[in-house]
């Protein structure tokens, strides 16, 4: 299973362009990253520049609209992520607990969708059947209309 550990640092939504963590924080994080790598669970990781250097593209009325950062309305923004490969959600949580994060930081754990990675035969047979049922039902409804 793959999980994203999404780092959400409070205050990063207002950080100035080019803001970087201090040397001590970086060193602690690097040690943590190393422990993930040595355990064979780390697939990839990235840190993100603050939103003040980014932009948002929204689609009001179905048309793209660009807003430059920082985003006044944003309460939570991403600071970076790790992608790990582990056996269970609990293992992902256990790894997140070991992160040398500070008080203002939250790590959100989200499973990466990869059900399609498995051949159809390995999926529970019910799943396919249920999908078919759903499709049939939608078709019936469409016909009624």
């Amino acid at each position, binding site marked *: 299973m793959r999980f994203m550990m999404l780092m959400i640092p409070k205050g990063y939504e207002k950080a100035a362009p080019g803001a970087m963590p201090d040397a001590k924080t970086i060193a602690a994080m690097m040690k943590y990253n190393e422990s993930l*790598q*040595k*355990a*064979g*669970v780390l*697939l*990839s990781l990235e840190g993100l520049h603050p939103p003040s250097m980014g932009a948002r593209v929204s689609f009001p009325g179905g048309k793209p609209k660009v807003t430059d950062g920082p985003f006044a309305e944003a309460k939570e923004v991403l600071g970076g992520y790790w*992608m790990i*490969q*582990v*056996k*269970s*959600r*609990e*293992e992902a*949580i*256990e*790894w997140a607990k070991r992160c040398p994060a500070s008080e203002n930081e939250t790590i959100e754990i989200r499973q990466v969708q990869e059900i*399609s*990675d*498995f*051949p*159809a*035969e*390995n999926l529970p047979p019910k799943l396919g059947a249920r999908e078919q049922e759903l499709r049939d039902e939608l078709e019936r409804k469409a016909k009624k209309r």
Partner: protein
Amino acid sequence: MTASATHSAIDAVWRIESAKIIAGLARMVRDVGLAEELAQDALVVALERWSETGVPDNPGAWLMATAKNRALDHFRRNKLLERKHEELTGEMELEQEMAAADHETALVDAMDDDIGDDLLRLVFVACHPVLSTEARAALTLRLLCGLTTDEIARAFLVPEPTIAQRIVRAKRTLAETRVPFEVPRRDELAARLSSVLEIVYLVFNEGYSATAGEDWMRPALCEEALRLGRIVAELVPNEPEAHGLVALMEIQASRALARVGPSGEPILLLDQDRARWDHLLVRRGLAALERAEQLGGQLGPYALQAAIAACHARARTAAETDWTRIGALYDALAQIAPSPVVELNRAVAISMAFGPAEGLALVDALASEPALRSYHLLPGVRGDLLVKLGRFDEARAEFERAASLTRNARERKLLLDRAAATHSRFRVVK
């Protein structure tokens, strides 16, 4: 937290910590089997205690301290004074260590310094050549991946008691032959490392393709092997073959989704939809191969196989494959690890680079090879080349022979389909 949630949390802690705990204990008690039992004891205590109190803040340290106490109890119970001198020293060190460690954390901090070394020792002992390949695989999954006997049994499609017995016997053999808990000497290192890498790759292959029965993949073992391979590569970062093996496994695993069709039928490499390859794993594989190459020296068998896999991984379409380079790499592989299977693959590469007739000449030279007599890929490849040369009747006979030799039901069907295609008007020339 509910009881089952606590159980899952403890499972996760065990998964992360067990190898380190067993390795640390094994250094103290000088017996891998005993170390594992002590670690298991600590786990049982944790299951009882944590169900009431919840998982502590530093569960690894808690388990380690508990296991160390068990070790001490064990030695006292066994009237250590009657034991041999070296074990006596073992206990004295242990007592000193216990006395010195006022806090659980201090104890584990001290452990952490050597943990890489201990883990490496554990890897080498679990894969010691004194054990059979099967025993090494079972013991490695047990000690280093923290799998249960039941999980190992299901992965290898054998009854649980068989695996349990295999592990018990392996531990006994290690104790009886007094295998030391240490990293092999420089002059032994290459051979011992290859014994480790062999097991990792065996586990990977077991997961990657079932040799019998219906199931094409048991993906969990692939992930275990990948994890294990990555751990080993970090433990011996200067060994190119460790990175070579990781590269090989990452690239092979990247094709897992593309190599099986909607109804479970195998799809050959050149027919695969390359968009369905896992490009994160491809990138990781190429990076691992680069690490192996940067360490210098002649590439070993794993790095060479990875380099071949990388040729495919780098080609955006099957037509862009650099077959000349693949042929050269197989040639290099045949020099250091000669085998009829390598020769067969070289023949395929040559046929792709220089035409089917060239390849067929090489394949025909292998026909009398006893090691390939019941190897289904030989007639499979020969059939393939004959189709390309328009010799359909001969090709059909080869595909039928190949189908009769494979034990994999899906592969058999694929071969019979190809045999049938040779005399239909929808001849598929590939």
